[in-house]
């Protein structure tokens, strides 16, 4: 009886060590998100899509944040991976201007996220607006 308990205890300790290793390994993999979804959309555009997806007033959000959004299309700059790359087809992109690998275009809001995932696209952002160098005195 005592012998049995003694071996049992030993088996228990060894087993618990093995189980703890398995649990630890599992938590090791799941404790980080990794980079499965790198964001290639400017933060404000992500927020605009979120507002739109929830059925909230996307026009108002866009206007407040200086984003051009009209008839379901957003004005963005699509930074392609290089100067030779072209805008991927099938996303309803209306090109306005292009300079090297940067394309200013109107993109249907529902296609923005999918477009950003194209391997040809490096980043999608809102166009930059200039500052006048006139001084009010």
């Amino acid at each position, binding site marked *: 009886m005592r012998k049995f308990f003694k071996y049992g205890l030993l088996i228990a300790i060894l087993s618990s060590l093995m189980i*703890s290793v398995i649990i630890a390994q599992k938590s*090791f*993999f799941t404790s980080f998100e990794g980079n499965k979804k790198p964001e290639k959309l400017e933060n404000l555009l992500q927020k605009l899509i979120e507002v739109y997806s929830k059925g909230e007033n996307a026009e108002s959000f866009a206007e*407040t944040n200086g984003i051009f959004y009209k008839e379901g299309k957003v004005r963005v700059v699509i930074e392609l991976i290089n100067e030779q790359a072209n805008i991927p087809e099938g996303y309803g992109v209306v090109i306005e201007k292009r*300079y*090297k690998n940067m394309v200013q275009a109107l993109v249907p809001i529902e296609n923005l996220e999918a477009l950003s995932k194209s391997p040809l696209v490096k980043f999608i952002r809102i166009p930059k607006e200039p*500052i006048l*160098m*006139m001084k009010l005195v």
Partner: protein
Amino acid sequence: MKFKTLALALILTFTILASFKPSLGNNENKVGNQIDLKSFVPTTKNKNLTLSEEDGSIKLVFKLNDESDLVRLLKNNVTVEASYKNLIQAKVPANALPKIFNSSFILFFKPPSKAIPFAIQSEGVNSIQANLLHLQGVFGENVKVAIIDLGFDISNPEIQSNIVEYKSFRADEDITGGSLENLRHGTACAEILIDVAPKAKLYLFNFETDIEFLAALDYAVNIGVKVISCSIGFVNVGPYDGTSYIDEAVDEARAKGVLFVVAAGNEALEHWSGNFKDEDGDGFHEFYLKDETNEFLAYKGSIIRVFLSWNDWPYSNIDYDLYLLDESSNLIAYSNNPQTGFQPPIEEILFVSPKTSVYRIVIEKTGGEGNAKLHLFNFDFNLEHYVESESLTCPAEAKGSLTVGAVFFATKDIESFSSRGPTDDGRIKPDLTGPDGVSTSSYGLSNFFGTSASAPHVAGVATLLLSVNPNLAPDQIQSILEKGAIDKGALGKDNIYGSGVIDAFKAYNLIKEKRTLEIHAHSIGFQYPNEPSEELDVEIMVNYVSDGLTRNEIVKPISKILVDYGTEASLKIISELTNYSLVEWDDYGIGRVKTQELKLFMNEDKIVIAYFKLLEAFNASKKAILTIHAHSNDFQYPNEPPNEVKAKILINYFEDGLEKSVEKEPIFQVSADYNSIAKLTVTSIPSGFSWLEWDNYRFGRTSSINLTVFVDEEKTLIAYFKPEIEETNMQKDFSLSISPQTQFFFPGQTINYTIFVSSINGFDSEVTFNAFDLPPNSTAQFYPQLIKPNASTTLMLRTSPVTPPALYTIRIIASSNDNIVKSIEAHLEPAVIPSFKPESIISSFIIIIIFHIISLRRRRKL
């Protein structure tokens, strides 16, 4: 019941209040009109706008969204006096003004422009002595100048007759720029330029976004404008060290011969820069000592624009966030873009001030390792803690820009707000300063302040100089303008005044000045200052500029030519000498140049000497070895090919005084008589190649298949052939493969992947690689970066000790010049280190004990 009613009332009240919550968008929409309204209040100060004594109405010009909106305007009891498309001149009852001003169908309004009996001229014209050039008949005639700005009034009588072309690069193609502010700004800049250079050919281009700006710049360069004046700036588009994409475009324009003159900016008091500092460890930046806020005063209705960036471009993993607090330190706006290695290092806040009040800016660090250098811009409002230096906007910090700061026209003292250098890479900026506080018909008398006004003054002077001497290159113009400037501030070029205040007359006198070009031709036996008694009798073609005109002249040494200051001259020997051969030019100060044609920048008096070698008399016993090669053009010296091209080359040469002829496949050598002539001809080109050129050993390339050489030393002569590409109907393509596809790593480890590129249907273009979706804090490099298939490259992925051990999928994009793009994935998994968690040990121990007790009981029962 009472409670229910009370609750309902509370909910209703809350709902109603919430519906009245001020919307930034609506406020923002009204801002333009509110500012305009303020400036159009009929007071004695606003002489353009007066109430009619008859009916108390005001005469205004409206720009409507569309012509059809006239019906909506008429509903406000206005009386239309005249119209042109969507521009309406109308009398408006004073009591209808507030309603009309807030109407969405009105793009903007202004008092009617009146014909000006005499032109308004910028005070800057006399201040920079451009008037003295006008007296000498210098008006900038025939020089193409572009102004790239936000909007123009092309009917403005001050500039109308100078406009050669105007073009809108905006998406809506509205040359007015869609607002009165934009319209006034571009027009006022054009007015100043025309005041300085009244006969310039004006090209007006407007835009709204960065990409439209780049398109406008590209267009201006391509149509051949010589000067561009630009009074705008960008922030948060890249580092302030001349490497942003906008800077690069400006550099390209300059390289193509366009002088790009840009306003430095007005941000000296509205800018803060320095390293992030958090001595108390609470995560918030300390602007000065322990002060974690930076205050400013903003007026009711004004737009607050705060921009933060830091030197971790293009994608940052240091995360800073930007907050705007009100006077009671309540958070009212914020920007918290994530920076996890995939996003640019920028934060921006736009906010309409609901009241005149003090606001506070706060910066917090929320992630990442290390501290970055910050740049904070707060447009239109002076900061409590400001840093004057490094306050240039983009592209004022570009290497290719001529950057202009502002001085008040009457005193020529620097404006306190004028942006200062240096750039983030340590270059001195601005380059020059120009006058502001000047009069234009757009802004009124003595009312146009800022570097916006200064830049077109400088661009105007550059235009005047170009009309005197159209051959001046951008570097030469800038050099003359800086040399002719009135030095102010620290001695020499400094980060406040640059080289000083622009002076048109001094710059003009510099280009009117002459420099002497003295030309000699010597035997190499006489080295300067050991002069020979006689010069060699050679003819030299000299191309130079005098009095603004390009001249070609054949001269014999010694010759002296008077050349315009700051221009380029070139010299070339045209005599065929029998006894001498050209060895080199001594180009005075720069050194010796082994070239047939010498080019010089004439910013000082120069003596140039062509050195010749005396050819020895024919001596059959002295030989020189000629080595003949035939190479594919893919292999350029010293990159030698493994095999020669199987071409045949015929060489006629002299050996022991007898003419000989040999036809062979390279490599081969002949021993030719010293000081004799050898002639080579390609007689057979193998299939798969076409003829390209001879490399004539030190004297350059020649595309003729015949080559004549003078045998005065041992020479290696290479015939270059171009490989022909076989035409095929099959689509050329390439494929990628990777080995291994999945690897394990410990944080801090470097992992290598090999990527193979295989040619399909004869694809042989260069392929370049990029890696995306890298693990945080890691870098990737390809060795080599460019390859031609079939070949492989190695992706070297360096992780950092702080890279989280997780699963990663790295995208590798390979792209060719002919727009073929392929991608492949590499997987990265953390190497597993067994680790023990106390809670898991205890829990599993308990489970085993229970299992053990149960089995023990069973045994007992048995």
